């Protein structure tokens, strides 16, 4: 085309006149390359779209329509903003209950229950391995009794969403929610529960696994199958790229590893005769939003497109409009610095803005003090206000996917999709996620990219304000949240009292049924629900499952 030739000539002229001299003065890597190592040109024009064979209808299309590049909601945020979520839990159920009531009173749409590490690993608070960890990164939940305290005065159908980081213990958490809703007399179909239930990423990145990969996957798909059959409007699977990215992955790996995980869940769910339509419609994806602004926006767009295209191709879905899902964007904890913590407010604001420009359905804003401790009430409020300012004052909600058609953003979206597709292809060639976990592939990839990113910061290729530039001597942040050490003893006493007061013969019988279900490979959720109702503890139920499945041990790669 004549006009394109003309454009090419004009661009050449422009380059000769203005670009060369500055490029020759050695720009550093942090300027030229994105955080994932994608080289960015100083200028993008229609020629770049031509180079990638950009086709609007095929590659972008309309919001709410395949391939969902522009988002899930046809009208974006015009009707309502994204759901503002807060992740919270610490100390004990009583303390956390106060925080939830506070968050709801301040306009939070819902919250994600942060469980402490012993609970997430199926250990009771009096287990010797729980030493020092009780109530630290979340709330300890030993039994239904703690759930009753946690949601005292908060009917489970009141928040717009209640979610949790239950993964290795997801069937127990599901049972806890059902048992508590029944106790509260709340209709289960009015509740909106989201269970993370992505145990595979624990092996890849986060480390909170209990059983070996295969039975772990089966427990996750038991939860999916149970919900698909009984509570199709809940969200029993949130596939997580977040933890993978935080452990060092680049943006393309975040997309690819998450889709590889999803494929493992879908394949196993199909094996268990789960209704695929129900599963696909209830999906949520949790991704990080880092500070590399345009790359992150392109990442969310590429994720939606590659996800829809991959699933369409692999499962021949008759209605491609089913291939959307909710994205929960969580501002990246790894971008927060312990130095000059007030700067983190700015970082989080930029990350929330990127998430909104990318059309994420739920957004979680981190707090300024998170590099140092569990956030205080004030810093949590600050991060909620950050979301409210961006949603209500900036005008970001006026139009859907406002960066679509940008020569740069479309080029970056396509580049990321291509790179992610290559990683995904390698994993599927290896035999899928479980095989790749067993071979140590993920751990090695993550260590490599984490080390490279750290090297760039240390070499000064990437500037971190307050860390490698603009450093100053500073006073420590005076207000830090400290978990009162007394709470650990209080929790242990509560557990002791429970063990003395409950009907222990009924507990033993119910655990026997859990063991039998696990051995005979039927869905474990109904038997676990009975055990939970009998006030069996998380540790007792997991100990029973450990006897059947064994435990996973991983090696220390670096």
């Amino acid at each position: 085309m004549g006009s394109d030739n003309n454009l090419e000539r004009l661009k050449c002229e422009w380059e000769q006149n203005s670009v060369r001299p500055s490029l020759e003065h050695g720009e550093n890597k942090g300027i030229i390359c994105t955080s994932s190592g994608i080289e960015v040109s100083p200028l993008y024009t229609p020629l770049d779209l031509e180079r990638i064979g950009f086709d609007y209808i095929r590659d972008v299309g309309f919001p709410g329509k395949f391939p969902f590049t522009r988002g899930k909601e046809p009208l974006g945020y015009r009707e309502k903003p994204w759901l503002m979520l807060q992740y919270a839990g610490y100390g004990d159920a009583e303390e956390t209950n106060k925080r939830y009531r506070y968050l709801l009173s301040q306009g939070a749409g819902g919250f994600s229950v942060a469980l402490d590490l012993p609970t997430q690993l199926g250990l009771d608070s009096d287990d010797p391995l729980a030493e020092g960890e009780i109530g630290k990164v979340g709330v300890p939940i030993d039994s239904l009794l703690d759930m009753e305290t946690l949601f005292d005065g908060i009917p489970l159908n009141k928040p717009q969403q209640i979610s949790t980081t239950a993964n290795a213990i997801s069937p127990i958490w599901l049972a806890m929610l059902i048992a508590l809703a029944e106790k509260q007399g709340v209709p289960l179909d009015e509740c909106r529960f989201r269970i993370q239930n992505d145990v595979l990423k624990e092996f890849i990145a986060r480390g909170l696994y209990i059983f070996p990969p295969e039975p772990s996957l089966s427990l996750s798909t038991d939860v999916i199958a149970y919900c698909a059959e009984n509570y199709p409007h809940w969200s029993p699977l949130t596939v997580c790229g977040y933890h993978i990215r935080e452990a060092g992955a680049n943006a393309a790996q975040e997309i690819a590893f998450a889709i590889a995980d999803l494929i493992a869940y879908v394949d196993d769910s199909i094996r268990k005769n789960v209704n695929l339509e129900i599963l696909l419609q209830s999906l949520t994806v949790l991704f990080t939003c880092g500070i590399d602004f345009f790359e992150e926006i392109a990442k969310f767009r590429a994720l939606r497109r590659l996800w829809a295209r991959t699933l369409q191709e692999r499962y021949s879905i008759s209605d491609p409009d089913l291939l959307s899902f909710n994205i929960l964007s969580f501002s990246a904890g790894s971008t927060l610095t312990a130095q000059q913590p007030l700067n983190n407010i700015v970082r989080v604001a930029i990350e929330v803005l990127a998430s909104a420009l990318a059309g994420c359905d739920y957004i979680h804003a981190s707090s300024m003090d998170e590099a140092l401790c569990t956030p205080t009430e004030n810093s949590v409020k600050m991060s909620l206000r950050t979301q409210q300012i961006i949603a209500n004052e900036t005008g970001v909600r006026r139009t859907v996917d406002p960066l679509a058609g940008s020569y740069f953003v479309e080029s970056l979206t396509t580049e990321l999709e291509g790179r992610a597709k290559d990683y995904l292809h390698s994993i599927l060639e290896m035999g899928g996620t479980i095989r790749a976990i067993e071979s140590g592939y993920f751990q090695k990839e993550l260590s490599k990219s984490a080390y490279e990113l750290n090297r760039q910061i240390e070499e000064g290729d990437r500037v971190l304000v307050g860390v490698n530039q603009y450093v100053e001597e500073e006073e420590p942040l005076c207000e830090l949240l400290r978990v009162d050490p007394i709470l650990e003893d209080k929790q242990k006493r509560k557990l002791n009292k429970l063990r003395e007061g409950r009907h222990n013969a009924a507990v033993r019988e119910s655990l026997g049924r859990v063991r039998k279900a696990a051995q005979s490979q039927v869905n474990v959720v109904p038997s676990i629900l009975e055990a939970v109702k009998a006030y069996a503890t998380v540790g007792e139920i997991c100990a029973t499952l450990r006897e059947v499945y064994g435990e996973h041990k991983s090696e220390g790669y670096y």
Partner: protein
Amino acid sequence: MESIRARGTTKLQGRTVGFRILVAKPGLDGHDRGAKTVARALAEAGMEVIYTGIRQTPEMIVSTAIQEDVDMVGLSCLSGAHNTLFRHVIDLLRKGGAGQIPVVVGGSIPMMDAKELKEYGVAEVFGPGTSTKDIVAWVKARLAPEGSQERPVIPAT
């Protein structure tokens, strides 16, 4: 570098290969990006590094440290359980007659805790944002103080 060293595996020939460092994650915290980055940096600086993976009890860490005859122990914890777990490791080292092995720590450790941990016997606290170069330099200086002859270092492969 994709090295794996399980606990108690082959002993190398004495102390001539340079410093031997144990990097360990006590407790239940699975965040080992920092621990692995430090392990790799120390290895690239020519030290022999044993990383035992996540979820180690203080007992396991101390038994590895003694069995492997390490020159230094590095602990990382991001879950907030550092006060309990780091002290427990130091207690057990002393009890096992290995109290002379310096223990350095990292992770999300508030300044107030850092001060108390140092009083308790932690040799140094490397907080978030510490450069691996600073850590390597500190370790070398500590293990081969001025005036003494630094032990020959074989580059890592």
